[in-house]
């Protein structure tokens, strides 16, 4: 018999799959497991398995690696999408929602996130994703003995960098800054921190389709960066060497070999710093400096959970992930931040975690990672999009190209990349 028109191959295949798993479940007396695709690997993956171990139904966690977008696109093409995915970029959530791949999700009553975060996961008024994890991305790391006085604002940072750079050139002292410029996201994090301070009100506008990438705010932020990055002796081994330095290596340069004094990095820098710490001295942090003393705006990154259409039990699992108790294994492990403001500050294991969680709840200062919100290839990857453009800009300013010329090139490329990704001007 021919299947009735309108029943897609996918539905048939799903029915067959559901049939066979139902059979298996019937034998074991359990329920069908929910499949979740995540980007995490190694210890992060183990931690998440601990989290879903508390879920009443069996959950199968699959690591899709860093190319989760390609993985999910291929699985969609093949009609074998997982039930739930945890995406590292809100841009993907809205993209998938617009293509009709996702089903709307609900959050538990225990779920509340800082203003501005929730909207990133909605499309046409519907909520398509929830935040499950957050990262604080406005920190500068250093060893206390290497930098006794923390720069209070941007100008102080520039001055300190000049002094340390001069010392490094003269008698081979440590370079003021370590930077993993081989990883494009390191540079976009710098850029976002400065941009949110220079133009807090136009920051979010750059994520929208009509963004002006050649306008004043972008130019001003790049100009500020050029002022710091072009300082002679600012980086270990110079700019060209910095472009071959990966993020983990830059952490090692600060905490282990002590060839650099400061490092801009997110809270998860601690994961790398811990095994490479030498002696009893642990690195400490201060807030990425803004023009005014007291720190600039806060850049936050995060991972969002979505449920695919036709998913079995996907919506329920997503709802469960937003409960306060679900975050417990992450709290116990330390080094993880919850975007949920109903998670009690006191439940964080250490002072640092408590402080960072409190910072995230300060009203009005929070901005979500901009490059993660950009559409298509513009969002960046190795050799692609905004990652590549920021690396080009970094290469220019550390190689003695005039700031105005470097800015002109970078903004031109940014505008072109935004246009070809389907927006911007």
């Amino acid at each position, binding site marked *: 018999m021919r299947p009735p028109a309108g029943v897609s191959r996918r539905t048939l295949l799903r029915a067959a799959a559901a049939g066979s798993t139902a059979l298996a479940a019937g034998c074991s007396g359990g329920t069908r497991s929910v499949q979740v695709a995540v980007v995490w690997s190694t210890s992060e993956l183990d931690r998440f398995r601990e989290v879903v171990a508390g879920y009443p139904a069996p959950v199968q966690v699959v690591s899709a690696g860093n190319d989760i*977008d390609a993985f999910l696109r291929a699985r969609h*093409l093949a009609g*074998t999408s997982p039930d739930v995915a945890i995406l590292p970029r809100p841009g993907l959530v809205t993209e998938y929602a617009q293509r009709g791949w996702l089903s709307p999700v609900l959050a538990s009553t225990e779920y509340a996130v800082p203003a501005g975060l929730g909207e990133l996961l909605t499309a046409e008024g519907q909520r398509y994703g929830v935040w499950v994890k957050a990262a604080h991305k406005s920190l500068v790391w250093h060893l206390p003995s290497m930098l006794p006085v923390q720069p209070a604002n941007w100008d102080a940072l520039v001055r300190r960098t000049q002094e340390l750079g001069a010392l490094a050139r003269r008698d081979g002292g440590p370079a003021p800054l370590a930077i993993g410029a081989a990883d494009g996201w390191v540079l976009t994090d710098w850029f976002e921190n400065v941009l949110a301070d220079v133009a807090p009100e136009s920051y979010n506008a750059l994520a929208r389709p009509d963004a002006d990438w050649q306008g004043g705010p972008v130019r001003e932020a790049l100009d500020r960066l050029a002022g710091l990055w072009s300082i002679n002796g600012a980086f270990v081994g110079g700019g060209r060497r910095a472009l*071959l330095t*990966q993020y983990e290596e830059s952490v*090692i340069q600060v905490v282990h070999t002590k060839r650099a004094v400061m490092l801009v990095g997110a809270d998860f820098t601690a994961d790398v710093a811990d095994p490479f710490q030498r002696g009893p001295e642990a690195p400490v942090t201060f807030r990425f400096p803004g023009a005014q003393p007291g720190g600039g705006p806060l850049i936050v990154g995060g991972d969002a959970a979505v449920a695919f259409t036709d998913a079995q039990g996907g919506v329920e699992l997503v709802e469960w992930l937003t409960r306060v108790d679900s975050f417990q294994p992450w709290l116990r492990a330390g080094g993880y931040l919850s975007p949920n403001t109903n998670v009690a500050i006191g439940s964080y294991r250490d002072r640092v975690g408590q402080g960072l969680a409190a910072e995230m709840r300060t009203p009005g200062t929070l901005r979500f990672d901009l490059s993660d919100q950009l559409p298509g290839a513009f969002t960046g990857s190795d050799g692609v999009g905004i990652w590549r453009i920021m690396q080009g800009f970094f290469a220019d300013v550390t190689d003695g190209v005039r700031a105005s010329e470097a800015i002109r090139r970078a903004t031109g490329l940014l505008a072109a990349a935004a246009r070809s990704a389907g927006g911007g001007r």
Partner: protein
Amino acid sequence: MSQVRVLGELAVLDDVGPARRGRAYPAVGATSALLLPAAVLLGGLVLWPVLRTMHASVTTDGRWVGAAHFRTALAAPGTGAVVGRTVLWALLVPAVVTALGYLLAAASRRSEEGGLVRLILLVPVALPLVVTGVTFRLMYDPDPSRGLATLVATRLAGRSVEDAPQLLGPGMVTVALMSAFVWAWVGLAVLVFRSALDAVPPSLADAVRAYGGKRRHVLWDAQWRPLLLRTTAVVFALVAVGTSRTFDLILVMTPGSVRDEASVLALRIWQTSGGTTTGDGAALGVVWLVAVIGGIMVAALFVRQAWPPPPVEAAPEPAPVAPPRRVFRLLAAGAAIAWLVPLAVLVATSAHGRVDAAARGWWSAPPNGESYRNLVTGTELWRTLGFTLLLATAVTATVLVVALLAAYPLAWLTGPAAQATGLLLLAASVVPIQVIAGPVNEVLGLVLSSGTAQGLALVHIALGVPFAVLVLRNAFADLPVEQVRDARLGGRRWWHTLRRLARHNRSAVVAVSVLEFVQVWNDLVVGRLFGGPGSFPLGPFLAEQTRSFVSNSGALAASSVLASVLPVVLVVLSRRHLVAGLVSGGVR
């Protein structure tokens, strides 16, 4: 054809007159059945995806757009450089490998240490390209306190540590990648040239000398003209096709900021299309496909004749030939030492723990077993190794069965039909998987196995079958008529005949098995494109760890060493069979 007993002996009724190959040809029905598995695999997972990619390159959402995608793709900034670099790879690297291969094969001939030299050169051939990439990135580490090559270059140039030459920097990265590739491939060229040189009857050189020929005449008339020209073409073509695998090296060796300066078409297509194949990505893919297949066809025309030639009358015991001159032997010894250095760097790094390997050079800290201890006591590497072993074994067995079945009837084709089949198989065996990834995924979706181990295996099988059929078909066709006749007489059914024939072709069967196994074991791109939950083979597993290269280098080097043991042992043990298989596959 019927079999009866004549005077107590089994005979075939129409077995009169000169022996003919046609006697062993299976009936039409059987032929179709034998060819079916290979045809379904190739049709579904190679041919149809190729057509689909071509279709995608001229349409947008099913609408005809003509050459628009080609124009956009070729006009995109940087495409010119990418295409140029791909061409450079396809011409320069094979030329270097071929020349070096010939020189070293000649230099390591008939000398006592020659066997050892060839063995050393062969080891890199068997390594996964990911491991080669890891090895050379360790040597070229931008920090002279860790990278041996950087340290040496700094000293030689008399530069300061802060001003060390950057071999992985934008200016040098392609040269660095090429050096790794040459290191990995020269052994193969040496092996092939060696057996070609051995096949040249020394009497030929004597004859040339007898007619007053000088050294260059001997070289030209007794070496190049009869044999080596064709061998050179084979090696060149093999390496040129191999350069389309630079993908693995680039992904592993280049830091993100220089990836554009190293990019070739394989990478560009992967970056622009991910797991799907549409628009610009498809257009670039078609350009690449046409170039690769065109190139291999030209090479095939060059080397159409059979190689090695049918054995001549049993030659008299070859007169002892003088070993090569001393300078040549020194060259061979020097090469062997140079080839050992990267291996030593890999092993030395693997003998250091995480902190030591990341923070200082392997020569400045005492080795310990920390990295190995962590790996061996962990479960992750074992799981990956186990899965890869299972995958490679299953794929190899299936490819062998499917290819044997198909090669049997194909071996008795003659004339244009045989040539056309050969060229078609050759073309199918060089189709780059990146170009057809999207459509292949659709097909896998139809059989509900995308992102699963079965799907991964299926893709490997489809990609492995054409080459295996080619090698086995040629091996069958090369069998002396008498052996074929014996097999036909002794085998009561066609599968008995096939088994007997396969036994006569042990070399080809071993070559196909080893090559297929090593190919799957060493793969990165298929695993990356079609792997998924629970099906994460070795290549992607290692490549994933290079995202934080320095902080992981101890564990990465240790897992690379463990991952290389099996392919190296297999290739070294089967090296003689490999040449026969490889060369017969490349020449019809």
